[in-house]
């Protein structure tokens, strides 16, 4: 486990890899642009693919990075609060809640303004979070109940989403595509939705020590003077906002929030000070890679990123399950 002794080293390496992949991804797509061309375009010495780069590829790359990081951080927070390595926004019903509200808006008000979509995604995520808090209130937010209730709420949302899809079959294809998660057609406009993420992610630094204290057990955390309810709710809210914003942009992409913290933990251990930034970088890399691969495998057809993350994510997840089983 030597890796755990050099967290700063790992952070730097990950950052470097991210930048490299970002650069490469700018070149991939229906129109291939060589790295040299990309570079000359960026520094302004050439205008050859300027339009594609600046209007499509660059915003898309940035979106992937920010959304990937947000989902990863959201997952890391949830796994910390719920003390369960399988917790993540997808599993706890937050993503589904976002999806339900967004789908409802998409279908019922097809001509709605740009703002309606992210707003409804936020609302959906928030509603689930509030429902979570309400339902677990009497049991002093026992972590077990919280997660189970999340799963149940997710199931309800899933039923709701399917109801919409069946009641309005004309929109099924767009709805499904949106639910699978994809960065297709996303550009600078969508960047506005991610402002909360850009604010919140740096702000998380404040909560890092509190997250670690929570890991010592509820009674110990109280014994050390933490107001655990307050901390948990605040962290939950942050996770919800990050997820809501992400879903608003890419639809419900899965596995990023589940897996990035795991990989992060294997690299740098469970101290939040390193785990959160490393997870963020891994999440960003993951989504960026998924999007790039989706674009580059069979151009000009784009495989939605959500499918790629599922294909990469699932086998790794199964491997994780086996490891957990062995550790017992």
């Amino acid at each position, binding site marked *: 486990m030597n890796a755990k002794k050099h967290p700063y080293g790992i952070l730097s390496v990950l950052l470097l890899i991210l930048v490299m992949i970002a650069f490469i991804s700018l070149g991939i797509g229906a129109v291939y642009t060589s790295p040299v061309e990309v570079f000359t375009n960026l520094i302004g010495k050439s205008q050859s693919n300027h339009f594609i780069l600046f209007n499509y590829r660059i915003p898309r790359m940035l979106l992937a990075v920010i959304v990937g990081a947000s989902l990863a951080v959201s997952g890391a927070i949830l796994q910390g609060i719920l003390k369960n390595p399988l917790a993540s926004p997808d599993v706890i019903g937050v993503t589904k809640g976002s999806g339900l509200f967004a789908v409802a808006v998409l279908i019922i008000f097809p001509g709605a303004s740009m703002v309606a979509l992210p707003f409804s995604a936020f609302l959906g995520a928030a509603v689930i979070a509030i429902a979570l808090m309400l339902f677990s209130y009497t049991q002093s937010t026992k972590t077990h109940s919280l997660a189970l209730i999340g799963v*149940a709420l997710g199931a*309800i949302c899933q039923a709701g989403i399917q109801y919409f899809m069946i009641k309005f079959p004309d929109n099924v294809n767009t709805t499904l595509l949106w639910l699978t998660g994809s960065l297709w057609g996303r550009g600078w406009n969508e960047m506005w939705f991610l402002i909360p993420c850009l604010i919140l992610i740096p702000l998380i630094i404040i909560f890092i020590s509190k997250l670690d204290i929570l890991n010592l057990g509820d009674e110990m955390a109280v014994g050390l003077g933490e107001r655990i309810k307050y901390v948990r709710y605040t962290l939950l809210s942050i996770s919800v906002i990050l997820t809501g914003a992400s879903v608003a942009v890419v639809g419900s992409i899965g596995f990023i929030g589940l897996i990035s913290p795991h990989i992060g933990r294997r690299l740098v251990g469970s101290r939040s000070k390193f785990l959160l930034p490393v997870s963020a970088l891994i999440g960003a890399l993951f989504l960026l890679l998924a999007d790039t691969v989706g674009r580059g495998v069979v151009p000009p057809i784009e495989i939605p990123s959500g499918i790629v993350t599922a294909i990469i994510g699932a086998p790794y997840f199964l491997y994780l*399950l086996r490891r957990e089983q062995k550790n017992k």
Partner: protein
Amino acid sequence: MNKNIKKQRARRYIIGFISVFLLIAGIFIHVSVGSSSIGITDVIKALFQPDNSKQTTVIQTLRLPRAVLAALIGASLAVAGALMQAITRNSLASPQVFGVNAGASLAIVVATILFPELHSKTTVYFAFLGSALGGITVYLFAAGGKVTHIKLALAGMAVHLFLSSLTQGVIVLNEDATDVLYWLVGSINGKNWSHVLILLPWSVFGLLAAFIMGRSISILVLGENMATGLGEKVQWIRLVSGVIVIILAGSSVAVAGPIGFIGLMVPHIARKLVGGDYQRILPFSALLGGILLIYADILSRFIAYPFESPVGIVTALIGAPFFLYLARKGRNIKQ
């Protein structure tokens, strides 16, 4: 003491009678209700004095098979759920939580797209394969050692997510979306006798096998060590039960898609009504499951009137709050 036992037994008989009555009534209502109502007397006439009227044809070719299917599937899924909850000693276990449903439907979707000419009878085998894969994945995580409800639920949910996102992905990439959408939800709409015929042998076999296993299951629930001490071969019981679950759930999904929550809810209700002996719980779950699905299907004709909704949505709308209730009760659930 004896008075109590007698009272209990009497109570169980009463419950049994009421259930059978509900089931039969349910079938009648199911058959008579729909986009065109058919009076009860007409239904009785059609069943026992069939003539060639249009109504009789409708009843015999459309409505009746659907009712029978609902009863069969409800029974199969309920018993599958009861078996799973017994083997894993986890009251949240069910074909849906364990990814059995999702695995089966993924397999079917893939099969339908890859081999469109395939006869429905053969797709059942794909369903078995899929449900086996889904179930084994979660089982690997959930069996043995101390697995809390939450670990099971999360593991199951994660596997379910994986499988259904794959299913979704396959559907998205393939133009034939609307048709296959039903496979995501589970529905008995538009099924006829051919479907019943596909399901019947598997259901009957599975249900009978389950009932026979009743006593062994009861002993298994006492604990592995206890069961071995009483001479039961624990691994063998688990294996056979697993196979039965795959048969019951897989065949149901093959015919009607992944209808959820029946396997989760019914065993709990059954346990409350007839006590903890699986020799009673299993047959009673079958009865109760049939009733539940029949009435759910009746409901499904109305929630989006005049369109019919897939029954899977109704079971989800009833079942998810139930799941929520179970989750809150969580502390007191005995393993």
